[in-house]
């Protein structure tokens, strides 16, 4: 049981993510996560405002089950499989974030400064989350994929658009943590 409850090393993660990709394809579907945003839009009636969403979401019922599985898996993990959310961060990272005013750094998965009720019920905190979401939704659809679809499926099948997209992910991510986070906090 110890193995289940302790954090898993990085070299366990890669092969298990690849196993997920393998099974997804083996079951007859293309591995990726961000198309689900489109499917959810279609399900709530976005087809009324744009033909882009006029699709039959029932063709993607398997993907909706995968999404439900992700939520259940997250719930199981948070409640039963991770008794201790301590993260073994680089001391330099901890110092930087502490200097920015973050507290309890690396004692939990999600920083209070962004995820606590106090943060999300403030205008600034709410805008941080919702606008990040808008960038994620718009960006993945424009780029044609996310970390699963581009960085893993696309790079491993040697597709040039995926390499470009991953370069884009890093341009955006670097701007976010080097410039935007220090301005926001």
């Amino acid at each position, binding site marked *: 049981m110890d193995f289940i409850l302790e954090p898993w090393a990085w070299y366990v*993660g890669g092969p298990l*993510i690849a196993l997920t990709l393998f099974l997804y394809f083996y079951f007859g579907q293309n591995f990726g996560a961000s198309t689900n945003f489109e499917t959810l839009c279609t399900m709530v009636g976005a087809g009324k405002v744009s033909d882009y969403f006029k699709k039959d979401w029932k063709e993607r019922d398997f993907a909706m089950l995968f999404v439900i599985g992700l939520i259940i898996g997250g719930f199981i993990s948070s409640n039963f499989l991770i008794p201790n959310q301590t993260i073994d961060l680089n001391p330099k990272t901890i110092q930087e974030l502490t200097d920015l005013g973050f507290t309890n750094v690396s004692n939990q998965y999600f920083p209070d400064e962004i995820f606590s009720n106090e943060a999300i019920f403030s205008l600034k905190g*709410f805008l941080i989350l919702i606008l990040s979401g*808008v960038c994620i939704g718009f960006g993945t659809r424009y780029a044609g994929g996310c970390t699963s679809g581009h*960085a893993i499926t696309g790079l491993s099948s040697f597709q040039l658009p995926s390499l470009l997209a991953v370069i884009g992910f890093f341009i955006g991510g670097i701007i976010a943590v080097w410039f935007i986070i220090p301005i926001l906090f």
Partner: protein
Amino acid sequence: MKNIKFLLLGIFFAIVLSKVQAISWYRFYEMFRFESFHMFGIIGGAVVVSAIIMQLFKSEKIKDINGNKITPKQKQKGYIRTLVGGTFFGLGWGVSGACAAPVFVILGFKWLPALIILLGALIGTLIYGLVSKKLPN
């Protein structure tokens, strides 16, 4: 319910991402600051093992459950689409620490902030749907 296997696969994937901390805001912050090998090891490892799997698919040594050849979908080409779209995604990912699969996993940890991010993502997707024909490729 022949698709129940996707539900189980989703549960498995969520547990893997949670246990290797690939849903933690701090891990992505650290990755974009290049201060840790952890996330690079995970993503790099996933890509290397997946590349081997892709070769087995390509040579048809492994076929899907129905006996068909497995070919990953070809991604849409275009420099602006991939680089600009990718940059937008990276901005959202870097600030919120959530990407497309983890946002659903985070719902099981911190449901309210994850729901706000998800709502934003659906608005962003809707905006893309409305303007997609006018955007450069």
